């Protein structure tokens, strides 16, 4: 089974149907395991009563028939098929109506179906499905796609109600493929699938549908974001690694000199492509100091969060420090607190950087903020529980610095604001 899942992960997502049927025939003993763990592209049937299309899946299947959410009838007809209870069917009808509106707003077309059934532990399972053909010939409004499929499967297990709350366990899969094709640049095709899970305990005061809907909306946005930014981004990075863009290659040549400045250069030029940086880092030590500062500091000075992210991925030391000319040891946080835009600081504190280190003369990041009158930054540090109470050897506490710098009012406002949040 492990090997089968390994193949599912490696083989081209376009071939998922073939892979699955091959695996089913090779290992019939794992028939139901495979079907439950591997999501297949969604199929559609037309409801005979309403003429509306509905989506087929394991959750509306009984024998070889599928139940339509519109007419509640099995296609093809089935004697004694399984049906949800009357009460659950009412929720199912409502969910189908509402989910169709949701689908219209996000997908501008497509087909959706919701199925529900009672499970063995007094709760129920709901399955929300969306299928969208975004190609030129399908329902792509903008006509960019030669071929484009999006299949989303959301399965929510809803636990029994206890003290007004229920446990919701959402498992979502998105499968997509998109191809653009034009004469000047050939075919460009991306396809893939990801699956994620989300667990929540929510009050049922606003109803199950509301809770489930919000979870699905959040999950879909997350999945779309990570496909777009992370997964597609990674393949793009790979292309840049295979053949770095020309201007970067030239810069690379320019920058290759007897000393260590290459990485520095890349850090500055980073916006173009992070692949080259990674490549350079493979060959150079991260901690080679350059004019006594590390790459981290340089990245911060250039205010590029992404570079810092990459550097840190390469295990650069978050808490590294530099000695400035006057022998004051600055930690990253101090530099950021003094100089740079807050997203960076936010980023640093998000990645577990120690925010309370002291400089040689005992300055804290907070004090640097106060010294330089940086409002939002103070906020971020405070939210991340920087310690106001830590004093330094020679100096009083943060608020007295603020007072000295005639920044008291702002300081108080900032602290108040943070406390309110």
């Amino acid at each position, binding site marked *: 089974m492990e090997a089968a899942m390994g193949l599912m992960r490696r083989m081209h997502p376009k071939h998922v149907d073939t892979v699955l049927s091959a695996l089913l025939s090779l290992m019939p003993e794992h028939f139901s395991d495979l079907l439950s763990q591997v999501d297949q592209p969604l199929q559609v049937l037309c409801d005979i009563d309403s003429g509306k299309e509905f989506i087929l899946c394991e959750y509306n299947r009984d024998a070889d028939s599928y139940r339509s959410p519109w007419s509640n009838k099995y296609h093809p007809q089935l004697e004694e098929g399984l049906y949800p209870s009357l009460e659950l069917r009412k929720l199912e009808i409502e969910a189908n109506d509402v989910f169709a509106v949701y689908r219209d707003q996000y997908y501008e077309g497509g087909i959706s179906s919701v199925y529900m059934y009672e499970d063995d532990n007094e709760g129920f399972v709901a399955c929300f499905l969306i299928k969208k053909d975004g190609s030129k010939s399908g329902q792509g409004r903008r006509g960019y796609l030669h071929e484009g499929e999006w299949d989303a499967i959301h399965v929510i297990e809803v636990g029994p109600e206890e003290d007004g709350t229920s446990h919701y366990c959402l498992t979502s899969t998105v499968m997509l493929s998109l191809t653009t094709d034009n004469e000047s640049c050939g075919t460009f095709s991306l*396809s893939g699938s990801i699956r994620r899970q989300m667990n929540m305990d929510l009050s049922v005061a606003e109803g199950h549908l509301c809770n489930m809907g919000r979870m699905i909306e959040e999950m879909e946005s997350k999945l779309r974001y990570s496909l777009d930014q992370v997964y597609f981004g990674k393949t793009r990075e790979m292309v840049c690694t295979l053949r770095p863009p020309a201007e970067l290659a030239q810069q690379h040549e320019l920058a290759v000199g007897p000393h260590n400045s290459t990485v520095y250069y890349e850090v500055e030029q980073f916006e173009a492509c992070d692949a080259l940086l990674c490549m350079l880092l493979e060959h150079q030590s991260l901690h080679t100091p350059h004019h006594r500062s590390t790459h981290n500091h340089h990245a911060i000075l250039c205010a590029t969060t992404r570079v810092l992210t990459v550097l840190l991925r390469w295990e650069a030391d978050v808490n590294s420090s530099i000695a400035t000319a006057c022998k004051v040891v600055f930690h990253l946080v101090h530099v950021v607190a003094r100089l740079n835009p807050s997203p960076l600081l936010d980023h640093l504190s998000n990645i577990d950087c120690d925010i309370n280190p002291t400089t040689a003369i005992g300055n804290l990041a907070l004090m640097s903020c106060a010294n330089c009158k940086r409002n939002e930054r103070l906020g971020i540090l405070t939210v991340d529980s920087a310690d106001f109470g830590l004093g330094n050897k020679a100096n009083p506490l943060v608020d007295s610095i603020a007072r000295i710098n005639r920044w008291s009012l702002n300081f108080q406002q900032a602290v108040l604001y943070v406390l309110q949040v």
Partner: protein
Amino acid sequence: MADEQSPDSELSDDQKKEIAKWFLINAPAGEIQYVAKDVMAILKDDDIYHSAALEAFPEYNKSHMICLELPDRSGDVIVSSFGEIDKNKYLDPRTAQVATIDHVKQVCTEVRPAADEELPSPYIEEFRFALDAEVMKYVNDTYPKGVCSVYCANGKDVEGPGFDFEVVVVISAARNSPQNFCNGSWRSVWNIEFKDEEQSLVVRGKMQVGAHYFEEGNVQLDSQHECKESTLFQSPEDSATTITNIICRHETEYLASLEVSYLNLPDTTFKDLRRKLPVTRTLFPWHNTRQISLARDITKELGIGN
């Protein structure tokens, strides 16, 4: 679960072998060995696996144009149909050697000097050699892990002017970092027809890029592009420079167009599948769904909308 197995679903050994072959041949770039391990585990039959592997690996190696180091470290040989002498022997025109390949292990086991009849005539070799030198310079500057080879595809025995011949430039670059769940490959093949009568060259190129990222998911990029251009038949050195410039320009343009495709993704292309935000530009009003269904009922009853 064994009771779900129906007796007539049992596959014959030949069918199993075909399935195993399909898996191996369709493995993503740089991942055939991993796929092989999984296939072996599922088949539970070494004989079937080995006979499938014997047929699938050569096909995979050639279509992916994998590059293997020669055992004496004198260079690399690209496994491709252009240099194929027989199933296990491939010519490396640069060092004029023939490498013996173990397809399944993906290593080069032996190397011998090429026989005269396996090499092009001195007249052709002059063109091939000049082009190889130029393309190698370009590939070394452009592809961090690229290799290239120039073969004579047609008319290798042409002794002098008066006849047509054809050379092929193969560029292959692969990057595998399984620890980062990421693999990729670039392959481009350039056919150059030297037309004696018209005194012209026809350059036809096919570029192919693939990338696979599979950390907690499975996403693949496939892209390919073909192009064609003509130029003048010149001296070997001048032809080499002209051809290399054409290759460089097309490949750079192609890469730039890939970049544009990526840039277009979030706001245009991807939007046709699913928008980031609803048309209303606010999150969906789940707390207000009763109104939505009411509104739907009313429009239905009044027969407005659909």
